[in-house]
């Protein structure tokens, strides 16, 4: 009687374990942080690209309009892929594109912008990567769409045609 009871418990137990492992198989084992949507934008002070002046984040995001923050570097290959989308968006009046130049040499970055054109209204430099951490980013490129000083959309990796049209739809 006792062993019978125990065996039933064990069967149920292993059944549950099986089910959980089975479910777990379908989950990706690569961790992607939850999208920090509706978070306030971080506040920071950073150097402006190509000058020695510093700027506060409050001075950059001073309006209640759409901003697109793009983390990029000249050495990052996927950044070149998404560049045409950024140029396209830069023509749009509803959005201001802010670049964060991530761990880059200034010459290389200038060369990059010279070759592919500059979609950014303001570029700030992130020489040691800490500003990107403030944003919760962990790679290049990453893009944040901001409205009312809140992050409303986040794209990890290069912007592609889908995310591009989503952004366009939002800012219309």
């Amino acid at each position, binding site marked *: 009687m006792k062993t019978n009871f125990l065996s039933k418990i064990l069967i149920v137990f292993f059944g549950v374990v099986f089910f959980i492992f089975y479910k777990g198989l379908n989950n990706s084992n690569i*961790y992607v942080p939850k999208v920090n949507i509706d978070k306030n934008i971080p506040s920071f002070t950073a150097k402006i690209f190509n000058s020695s002046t510093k700027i506060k984040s409050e001075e950059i995001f001073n309006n209640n309009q759409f901003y697109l923050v793009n983390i990029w570097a000249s050495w990052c290959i996927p950044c070149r892929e998404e560049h045409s989308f950024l140029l396209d968006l830069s023509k749009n009046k509803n959005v201001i594109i802010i670049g964060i130049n991530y*761990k880059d040499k200034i010459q290389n970055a200038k060369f990059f912008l010279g070759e592919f054109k500059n979609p950014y209204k303001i570029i700030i430099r992130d020489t040691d*990567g*800490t500003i*990107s*951490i403030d944003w*919760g980013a962990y*790679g290049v490129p990453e893009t944040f769409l901001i409205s009312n000083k809140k992050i409303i959309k986040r794209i990890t990796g290069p912007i592609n045609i889908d995310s591009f049209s989503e952004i366009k739809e939002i800012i219309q």
Partner: protein
Amino acid sequence: MKFLKYLFIIFFLFSFNYSKAENNNLQNKITKNLRCLICQGQSIYDSDSEFANSIKILVDQKINEGQTENQIYEYLKDKYGEWILYDPKFSKNTYFLWLLPILIFIIGGAILSKLFIIKKS
């Protein structure tokens, strides 16, 4: 003897993290406890990826600003989720994680003590 043993165990369970450490040691300690998002499976301390190097700098800055270990953890947890911490805090998500092994230990002890004959026969 036995009583002393248990006392020791209880004492150690609580006295673990209280150590004075210098800045550098503190930085190592913190970065060893952070998981890298680029080479997932390594700690920030072990990793040499761009991301890990930035976090190392950031942790250094925060220590110099006078932030405590827990404040730094909270900050990073807020940015990247609880996943980034190797040492999960005791919370509703981790009750079982922390208590189940202890529970198993206690149950094991109970089963064991039933098998013993304490009195001399």
